[in-house]
């Protein structure tokens, strides 16, 4: 099979040199070659369009932010603990928004990483075929729920419950938003981590069982470390989702930029600020308008950092079986 295709390609390359004596079979090869080129070109265009879009977004972010930083010093941007760009007495410290983003994300991950990982281990190593057939679609259904629904779920259902336990909790708080965001992210982490675990070859599990290990020991001591790179990839995706999530935090965490890492307080995140401001009609090139892009740039940089970190960790622990 292999050698046959090799021969064909050798033939067709030699025909390009002497096209005058083309046999019908070789002519077909030339035709096929052309078709493959066209397909290749279309595929490349598709890939390039994604790259182009990314660059375009970054360019616009940079361009508009540049306008912003003409008015606001970078030092103020990163050191001031107040973010009030639309007020009379305007302050432009991004840190309150960054703190809000990190706090809600941390709460979300504290929920999603353990639950998602346990769900993945269960689905991959313990669930019977039938149980998996039931649980997986339910998880996938969770992915399909619009995020605004999760937002109101946090505000109108989870917050009141939390207030029963902890009466001082304000109506808008990062704890409730973070928990619900975590629930929202569980299916992503569970499904990617499960795929990684199921990709671990059976021979590795058999090796563990043959040593007298139980199913639990095999899952925890052998399968999980073998799948660690995929599991880390799942976490990174979860982090990116949490940092970029908008609706849940905008609805349930409040929209007041506050420099705090206390999840029981309300605070705005970067994304919450962006929707809030983008919904009003700000004149182009005004400082408020430009502040959206500066905030967006910071968000982009944060996600990029996590992705790069994830890439490094994955490289370090890449699957080797």
């Amino acid at each position, binding site marked *: 099979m292999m050698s046959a295709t090799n021969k064909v390609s050798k033939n067709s390359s030699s025909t390009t040199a002497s096209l005058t004596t083309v046999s019908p079979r070789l002519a077909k090869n030339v035709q096929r070659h052309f078709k493959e080129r066209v397909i290749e070109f279309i595929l490349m265009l598709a890939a390039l369009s994604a790259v182009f879009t990314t660059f375009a977004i970054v360019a616009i972010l940079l361009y508009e932010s540049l306008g912003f930083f003409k008015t606001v010093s970078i030092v103020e941007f990163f050191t001031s603990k107040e973010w009030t760009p639309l007020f009379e007495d305007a302050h432009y410290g991004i840190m309150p928004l960054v703190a809000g983003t990190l706090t809600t994300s941390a709460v979300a991950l504290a929920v999603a990483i353990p639950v998602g990982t346990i769900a993945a281990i269960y689905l991959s190593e313990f669930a019977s075929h039938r149980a998996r057939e039931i649980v997986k679609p339910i998880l996938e259904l969770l992915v399909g729920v619009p995020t605004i629904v999760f937002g109101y779920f946090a505000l109108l259902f989870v917050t009141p419950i939390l207030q029963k336990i902890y009466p001082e909790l304000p109506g808008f708080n990062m704890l409730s938003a973070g928990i619900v965001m975590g629930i929202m992210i569980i299916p992503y982490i569970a499904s990617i981590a499960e795929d990684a675990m199921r990709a671990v070859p059976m021979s590795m599990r058999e090796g563990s069982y043959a*040593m007298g290990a139980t199913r639990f020991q095999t899952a925890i001591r052998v399968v999980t*470390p073998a799948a660690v790179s995929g599991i880390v990839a799942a976490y990174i995706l979860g982090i990116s989702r949490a940092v970029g999530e908008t609706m849940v935090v905008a609805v349930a965490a409040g929209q007041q930029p506050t420099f705090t890492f206390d999840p029981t307080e309300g605070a705005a995140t970067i994304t919450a600020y962006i929707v809030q401001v983008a919904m009003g009609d700000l004149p182009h090139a005004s400082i408020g308008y430009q502040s959206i892009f500066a905030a967006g740039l910071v968000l982009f940089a944060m996600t990029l950092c996590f992705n790069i970190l994830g890439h490094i960790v994955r490289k370090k622990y890449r699957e080797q079986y």
Partner: protein
Amino acid sequence: MINATTPIKAESKDLNFFYSNGTQALKGINMPLYENKITALIGPSGCGKSTFLRCFNRMHDLYPGNRYEGQIIMHPDNTNILEKGVDPIEVRMRISMVFQKPNPFPKSIYENVAYGLRVRGESNKRLLDDKVEEALKGAALWNEVKDRLQDLAFNLSGGQQQRLCIARALATDPEIMLFDEPTSALDPIATANIEELMSELRNKLTILVVTHNMQQAARISDYTAYMYLGDLIEYGDTDMIFTRPTRKETEDYITGKFG
């Protein structure tokens, strides 16, 4: 022919085996494993060698729907290891296995060897250190890895990985060791090393080995069994099987007229 004074370590009695799809892969196998001897299983591909071997550590229990019939009696305690009430984990603690393809765990060399002890709940560092060293020496790997016990096992060569898997299986002091084509993924030098190792291990334990390599069976085994289509066609002294087989099928297979 068969030395009557050698004790039997384990024997299969009227052993039938059915895969979950209904395939009967073993048909009434009666065969002894003599203590401190190497028994080789030979036969054409698909004849049931691996299936038979994997009955001894209840590997088939991992997949739902597989079914054993008959017995495998282990001596001296006379337990039927296939009995429903017998915990397969108990069986695997007494009978360990080395696979065709080296399958080290994604752990350090040290932790690979210590794995069997760790899953038994052993955590005494001194004892683990000693056992790991002993097992690695037993698998003729100690000198090559003693300075890098914390390295990832995947960084070893194929032959070293297979010896690591042998060390891993040795560390728990098993009574029987099963080898399923342990050298088929290795080069001739690594193969020679493993063969030598198996001959030495015979002093400590009982070995059942599946091999496709007739010379290997002749070189290392004391007894040889020829299987065909799930039947045990002939069993006997290796010398006898390879020089004067009683069955025509065995002779055809050994001389290469078949398979």
